[in-house]
C-alpha cells in the first residue's frame, strides 16, 4: 500500500483526524471553557466538507474491500454537507444549561457515525459494509438518548438500539446465506455468482428486510415516529436526513451491482413496498400534531418516493436518487432547523397548534419553513420540484405507468398535510402565538444555507448534470 493510497480514503481519514482533535481539545479544556469546542468542530467539519470536493484519484483498496469511485465520493460529499448543516444548527441548542458540559460528546458521536457511513458507502464487500453500518447506527442510539433526564429521550434510545440490533441480526442472517451459497463476501464475486435458487431468494428477502428497517420502509417503519419524536430535534434531523441518505445510497448501489441478476425480482418487491410506503406514510402523517412526528411520517413517505428512482434502476434513476437526497437534505434540514429554533426559544413547543399565527411574530422563520415544506411537497420554484420530477422521469422511463400514477396522487395527499403547518402559520389566528425572538448567528447561518441550497440546487442544472455524468445503472 503506497502513501498515495491514503488519499483514496481521505474522507474517512480526515473525519477520524477531526474526531481525535476534538477528543484532545476535550481533555485540555476546563469545564467552563467547553463552549469553544462548538465553533472548533464546526470549522473543522467545514474544512473537511470543502476538502472532500477537491479532485482526487479513485481506485480500490484492501483487495477490493474498499472502493472509491467518483459517484461514491459524491455521495460522501453530500453526507458531509448534511452533517455540516446539522452541526451548525445544533450550535445554539448545545449552549443550553443541560448540554453545555457534554458538547464534545455530541460532535464525537456524530462524526463517528459519519465515518461509519463513509466506510459503508465505499464498501466493496459485505464485511466492510456491515462494519460501516454498525458504526453508523450504534452511536446514533447513544445520541438519541442524549437528553439524560428525559424519559422520552431514553425511550427513543432504547427503541432505536433494539430495532437496529434486530435489523442487523436479520441482515446478517441474509448475508450469511449469501456467503453460504456463493462462497465469497466480495460484491463483485457475489454479483456474478448470484442466481435465483430458493436459498438465494431467501437470503435476499432477509437482506431486504434488514435494509428496510434502516430506511424505514413500510411495514418496517413503526420505530421511526417514536424515535424521531423522542430524540432531541437536532439528532432527529440528522437521523432523518443523513443517516437515511447513507442507507439509501448503499442500498441503491448494492441493488444495481450485487443483486443485478435478480433485478426483475427485486423490482417487483420494491414496486409494492414503494406504493405502500408512500401511501401509508402519507396517511399517517395527515393525523399528526407533533411536528417531529409529522416529519417522521413524511420522511417515511419520502423514502417511498426515493425508491421510485431505485426501481427505475437506470443511470437516470440512480442520478435522480442521489440528486433527490441532496435536495432532501436541504429541505428537511431547513424544516427541522426552524422547528429546532422555535423549540429552543419557546421551551419545547413542537405542536402544530403552537405555530398558529407565527407569521405575524416571526416572518422569516415562517417563510423558511414554508419554503422547506414546499420543497418537500415538490412545488416549484424550489428544488424539491426538480427532484421529484426526475424521480418520476426515472420510473416513467421504464414504463411503470401505474406506479407513477400512484406516486403523483400521493404527492397530492402529501401536499395536503404539508399545507397544514403553512395554514397554521399564515392563516390561523391565535391569542398567544409564540413571541418574537431573535435567533442567534449559527441558526441563521444554518437556515440560510438550507434556503440557498433549496433554491440553487434546483435551478442550477449543472449540479444534476454533474451527478448524471457520474451515475451508474443496471
Amino acid at each position, binding site marked *: 500500500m503506497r502513501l498515495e493510497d491514503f488519499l483514496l480514503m481521505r474522507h474517512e481519514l480526515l473525519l477520524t483526524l477531526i474526531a481525535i482533535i476534538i477528543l484532545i481539545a476535550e481533555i485540555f479544556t476546563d469545564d467552563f471553557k467547553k463552549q469553544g469546542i462548538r465553533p472548533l468542530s464546526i470549522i473543522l467539519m467545514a474544512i473537511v466538507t470543502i476538502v472532500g470536493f477537491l479532485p482526487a484519484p479513485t481506485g480500490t483498496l484492501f483487495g477490493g474491500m474498499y472502493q472509491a469511485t467518483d459517484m461514491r465520493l459524491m455521495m460522501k460529499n453530500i453526507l458531509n454537507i448534511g452533517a455540516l448543516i446539522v452541526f451548525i444548527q445544533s450550535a445554539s441548542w448545545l449552549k443550553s444549561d443541560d448540554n453545555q458540559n457534554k458538547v464534545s460528546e455530541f460532535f464525537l458521536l456524530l462524526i463517528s457515525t459519519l465515518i461509519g457511513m463513509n466506510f459503508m458507502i465505499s464498501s466493496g464487500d459485505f*464485511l466492510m459494509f456491515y462494519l460501516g453500518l*454498525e458504526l453508523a447506527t450504534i452511536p446514533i442510539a447513544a445520541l438519541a438518548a442524549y437528553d439524560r433526564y*428525559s424519559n422520552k429521550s431514553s425511550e427513543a434510545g432504547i427503541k432505536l438500539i433494539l430495532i437496529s*440490533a434486530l435489523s*442487523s*441480526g436479520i441482515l446478517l*442472517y441474509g448475508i*450469511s446465506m449469501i456467503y*453460504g451459497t456463493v462462497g465469497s463476501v466480495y460484491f463483485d464475486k457475489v454479483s456474478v455468482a448470484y442466481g435465483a435458487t430458493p436459498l438465494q431468494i431467501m437470503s435476499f428477502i432477509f437482506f431486504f428486510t434488514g435494509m428496510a428497517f434502516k430506511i424505514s420502509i413500510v411495514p418496517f417503519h413503526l420505530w421511526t415516529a417514536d424515535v424521531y419524536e*423522542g430524540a432531541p430535534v437536532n439528532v432527529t434531523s440528522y437521523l432523518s436526513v443523513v443517516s437515511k441518505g447513507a442507507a439509501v445510497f448503499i442500498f441503491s448501489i448494492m441493488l444495481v451491482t450485487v443483486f443485478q441478476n435478480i433485478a426483475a425480482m427485486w423490482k417487483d418487491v420494491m414496486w409494492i413496498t414503494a406504493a405502500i410506503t408512500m401511501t401509508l406514510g402519507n396517511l399517517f402523517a395527515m393525523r399528526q400534531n407533533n411536528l417531529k412526528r409529522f416529519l417522521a411520517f413524511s420522511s417515511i413517505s419520502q423514502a417511498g418516493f426515493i425508491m421510485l428512482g431505485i426501481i427505475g434502476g437506470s443511470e437516470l434513476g440512480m442520478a435522480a436518487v442521489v440528486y433527490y437526497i441532496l435536495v432532501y437534505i436541504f429541505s428537511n434540514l431547513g424544516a427541522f432547523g426552524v422547528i429546532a429554533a422555535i423549540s429552543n426559544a419557546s421551551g419545547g413547543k413542537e405542536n402544530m397548534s403552537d405555530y398558529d399565527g407565527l407569521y405575524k411574530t416571526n416572518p422569516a422563520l415562517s417563510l423558511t419553513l414554508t419554503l422547506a415544506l414546499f420543497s418537500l411537497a415538490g412545488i416549484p420554484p424550489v428544488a424539491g420540484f426538480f427532484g421529484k420530477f426526475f424521480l418520476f422521469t426515472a420510473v416513467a422511463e421504464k414504463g411503470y405507468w401505474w406506479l407513477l400514477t400512484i406516486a403523483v396522487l400521493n404527492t397530492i395527499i402529501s401536499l395536503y398535510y404539508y399545507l397544514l403547518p403553512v395554514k397554521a402559520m399564515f392563516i390561523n389566528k391565535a391569542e398567544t402565538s409564540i413571541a418574537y425572538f431573535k435567533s442567534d448567528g449559527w441558526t441563521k447561518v444554518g437556515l440560510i444555507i438550507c434556503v440557498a441550497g433549496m433554491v440553487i440546487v434546483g435551478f442550477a442544472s449543472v449540479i444534476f448534470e454533474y451527478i448524471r455524468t457520474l451515475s451508474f445503472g443496471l
Partner: protein
Amino acid sequence: MKDMSVALKFIPLDHYVLLCIILFSIGVLGVLYRRNTIIIIMCIELMLNSVNLLLTAFSVYHSDPTGQIFVFFIMVVAAAEVAVGLAILVMMKRNIDSVDINLLSRLKW
C-alpha cells in the same frame, strides 16, 4: 487443523442450517414476545450467534476463511451494541424504574 475440518464435515451441512434456523427463530420470537428488555437483548444475541454458527459452518464447507473472520467482527460489534444498549437501559431504569418495554408507551401514535 486439516483433520478438524474434515471431522467437522462428517456432520452434513443441512444439520447446521437447520440448527441455525431454529436458533434464529427462537431469537426472533423472543424479541417479539418477551417484555423484559434484558431478555430481548439476550434474544438478539442469540440471533447473532446463530448467524455466527452459520457463517462458520459455511466457511468450513467452502474451505474459505472469510466466514470465520466475519464471525470475529460480528462478535466485537455485538459487544459494542450490547454495551450501548445496556447503558441506555441503565438510564431508562433510573428514569422510569423499570426495564419492562410495555411501559415504553409514552411515544405512541
